[in-house]
């Protein structure tokens, strides 16, 4: 299993859950269950993101962490699927 792929997929899963829950909260802002659900996945997301950006590079350019080179420009870009 490719660590980078696994981590990125964990982040994408968390992001989907967060986005979906955010849409629900937009129209149900006082739902305690949804708020707790959001918080739980936000914590999972933060952890996965920290590990990803430390080991594999940037998701947004604000993930810059002092490297000697601007990794933001490194491909593949999200639309460039290549069989690995």
């Amino acid at each position, binding site marked *: 299993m490719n660590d980078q792929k696994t981590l990125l997929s964990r982040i*994408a899963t968390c992001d989907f859950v967060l986005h979906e829950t*955010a849409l629900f909260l*937009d129209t149900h802002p006082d739902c305690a269950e949804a708020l707790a659900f959001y918080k739980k996945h936000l914590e999972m997301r933060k952890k996965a993101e920290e590990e990803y950006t430390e080991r594999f590079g*940037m998701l*947004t350019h604000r993930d810059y962490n002092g490297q000697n080179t601007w990794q933001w420009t490194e491909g593949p870009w999200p*639309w460039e699927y290549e069989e690995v």
Partner: protein
Amino acid sequence: MWVYEKKLQHPVKITRTDPAMAKIIITQLGGPDGELGASMRYLNQRYAMPNDKIKAALTDIGTEELGHMEMVSSIVHQLTRNLSMSEIEKSGFAPYFVDHTVGIYPVDATGNPWTASTIQSTGDPIADLHEDMGAEQKARKTYDNILNLCDDPDVRDVIKFLREREIVHYQRFGESLEHILSGLDKKNYYAFNPAFIPRK
């Protein structure tokens, strides 16, 4: 303000090229019920929306639609990689190719460029939210039609994901409309524009 995240909302991994299918699917980028129109519709409607919850919903759904635009473009891009000239000619892709090569340009399935005349921003929250619910159903319809035309499981996986999102958005816009209607002045029985009362 928006910040780009270097990933797709849902992965697009298409192994087999199919320029004829690309010509059909590109309508969900630049067609009348596509994702470019969806994002422009919702993001532009926000300013006249009086209700904070619905400002949030339009912002978040409009933002997601930008991500869907990127996914549809990724499908079209991956379906048209490494084509031979004979594949381009035989598949009916040549009319697109002559203007755009294999670049991504927002057109519908018959080649008409995207136009803002396929969307509305009326300044009337009730009219806008009805339009938004209709737009989600129309986009869901296009994805259903694509699923009827497409056999490639790599493409179908992404189209099914996008189709599901239309259903969720329809639900959220329905709730938004209820919020507006339940908050109307009781004298506004016929639900006229509650967001614009001319200054006396």
